[in-house]
């Protein structure tokens, strides 16, 4: 299963290609570039918060722009394109088709991302990743705000086109000998997350247009001065973005479903329960969006409904955790780098979920909402679960993509440092939230507990930063000079049995 030709080709041949592995490679390079760019912004934020007072960044406006672009970048330009990279490489192979269903559309979806990204980065807006009106209408400076709106519009369309392609590839192009109940869980995860995208994104697309016309002053949907309602925007936004958090996490879970059984040298404990949990999660994803809005003045009944909807999603997530543990149970586990990332990711997934339950319980949310707790909560997912699963999978696919092996020791060092760093940053941020520190603040009063927690978090972030430099060096060096991989069994697991879904791609 060699995913990329080993003979070097000129870059423009890859850029103008529509073949799924080439588009996958483009997605991969783009997403990793933005991982490092967005990560650099995070380090700037953490450095500024190391001490009260202005040190590194200097003024609040720049700080606000930095955290806005940080969040937007890592969600839309790292996590989503990374998943598309993996999907492009593996989904056609797993359903035994020669390419994606619509190769040209696939390339178009990719090439929409750079202009969207350019708008976000050149504008550098300041209204946070959810552009809450009326701030975003009456107060946020243009043209940055307008560029962000257009950028997100383009990224949203790209996401929808990509999702459409995955759905058709999986449902219509899979090999006739293969039933949908035989498609590997990684491909299932793309089916589930793509369906969520198709249902969820149009709502935000509409909200963005309304936001734009509100900013132009020709409408007043969300502007109270013109009789509009800003809370309506919150509903539209979260109707898209609560399900979207599952769009982000489901492919990462799918990647873990590839890694865990291989390196445990056992079949997956229950394939059916994996599918069931994906499908269930895609449905209940739509029942909980207003748990982000308890403090907007919702009635008791509304809050209760959305709390129940939120708690209903927990068993489905918990099923995945069970499935992973049961698969590892009694397995002959080999802790190579990908396995370490996957297992670390599952541990953090569990901790993050426990914190989510506390948020969802409505009286507790009034202690945690919009405090650093929330920052800690969702970063345990986006960094601890999604980035961990993704990076683990990157190490896993590395030999298949490059034909060479990465340096195992540095891979493990990367994991250990990132794992410790992640715990230092994001567990601490939960505590910081309980001490009452609001999120999205450029500066804070010198309360001793706040200072201590901020300093631990900053040190953790620096540890992650250093580990990412090791990672980058390892990837660049090994892809050119690493030792040649045995592509039949690069991880020395012994026997082809452990790669059950290896199917020859007719093009290779």
């Amino acid at each position: 299963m060699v995913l990329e030709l080993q003979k070097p080709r000129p870059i423009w041949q890859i850029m103008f290609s529509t073949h799924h592995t080439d588009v996958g490679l483009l997605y991969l390079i783009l997403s990793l570039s933005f991982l490092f760019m967005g990560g650099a912004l995070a380090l700037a934020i953490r450095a500024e918060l190391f001490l009260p007072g202005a040190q590194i960044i200097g003024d609040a406006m720049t700080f606000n722009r930095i955290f806005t672009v940080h969040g937007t970048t890592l969600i839309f330009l790292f996590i989503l394109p990374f998943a598309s990279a993996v999907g492009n490489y593996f989904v056609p192979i797993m359903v035994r088709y020669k390419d994606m269903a619509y190769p040209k559309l696939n390339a178009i979806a990719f090439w929409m991302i750079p202009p969207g990204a350019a708008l976000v980065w050149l504008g550098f807006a300041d209204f946070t990743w959810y552009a809450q009106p009326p701030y975003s209408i009456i107060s946020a400076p243009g043209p940055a705000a307008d560029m962000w709106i257009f950028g997100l519009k383009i990224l949203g369309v790209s996401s929808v086109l990509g999702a459409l392609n995955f759905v058709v590839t999986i449902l219509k192009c899979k090999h006739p000998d293969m039933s949908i109940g035989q498609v590997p869980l990684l491909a299932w995860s793309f089916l589930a997350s793509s369906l969520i995208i198709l249902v969820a994104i149009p709502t935000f697309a509409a909200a963005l247009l309304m936001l734009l016309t509100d900013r132009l002053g020709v409408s007043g949907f969300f502007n109270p001065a013109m009789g509009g309602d800003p809370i309506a925007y919150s509903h539209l936004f979260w109707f898209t973005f609560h399900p979207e958090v599952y769009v982000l996490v489901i492919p990462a879970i799918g990647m873990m479903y590839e890694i865990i059984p291989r390196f445990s040298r056992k079949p997956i404990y229950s394939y059916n329960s994996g599918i069931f949990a994906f499908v269930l999660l895609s449905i209940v994803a739509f029942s909980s969006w207003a748990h982000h809005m308890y403090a907007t003045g919702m009635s008791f009944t509304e809050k209760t409904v959305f709390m129940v909807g939120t708690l209903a999603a927990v068993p489905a997530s918990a099923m995945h955790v069970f499935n992973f543990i049961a698969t590892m149970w009694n397995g002959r586990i080999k802790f190579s780098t990908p396995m370490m990332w996957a297992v670390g990711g599952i541990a953090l997934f569990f901790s993050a979920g426990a914190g989510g339950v506390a948020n969802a319980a409505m009286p507790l949310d009034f202690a945690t909402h919009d405090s650093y707790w929330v920052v800690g909560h969702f970063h345990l997912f986006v960094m601890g679960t999604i980035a961990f699963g993704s990076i683990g999978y990157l190490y896993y696919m590395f030999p298949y993509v490059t034909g060479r092996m990465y340096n195992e020791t540095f891979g493990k060092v990367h994991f250990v440092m990132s794992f410790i760093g992640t715990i230092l940053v994001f567990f601490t941020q939960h505590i910081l939230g309980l001490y009452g520190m609001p999120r999205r603040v450029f500066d804070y009063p010198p309360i001793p507990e706040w200072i201590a927690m901020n300093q631990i978090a900053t040190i953790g972030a620096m540890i992650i930063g250093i580990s990412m430099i090791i990672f980058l060096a390892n990837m660049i060096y090994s892809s050119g000079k690493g030792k040649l991989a045995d592509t039949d069994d690069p991880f020395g697991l012994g026997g082809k049995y452990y790669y059950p879904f290896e199917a020859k791609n007719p093009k290779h």
Partner: protein
Amino acid sequence: MSGHSNWPEWIYIAVVIALMCWVGAEAWNAERLVEHVPADAEVIKVIAQQWFWTFEYEDGTKTIGDLYVESGKAYKFEITSKDVIHSFNIHDYVVLMDAVPGRVNTVWFAPTDVRTHDIQCREYCGLIHYNMRGTLHVEEPSS
């Protein structure tokens, strides 16, 4: 894929569901009690704007930034905003409610100690959001 039984998974799922029902029921009950505003609560209007708080008491007096209440009495805040969304927060008393322009949200509390507490804005509202702070002064009961 065969050769093992699924009962541990069923038990596990049942435990998770039971836990969630318990969390939900407890939360529902607690929130119901917390939301019950005492009838004799004194009303204080809280007006947020970029980037300070104005408090208006029942007798019509106003203060900016500093909020004065008496220990042992109940207060109901009627919160609104003049410009963008803010969030009125006295973290020590878990008082948190968004200040939304065009709406009045209410939340109540009854301070029990005699000291000062921090008031802050918990919803991003622009340039000086980080310093949209105030002070709650809980004083000895006057009567």
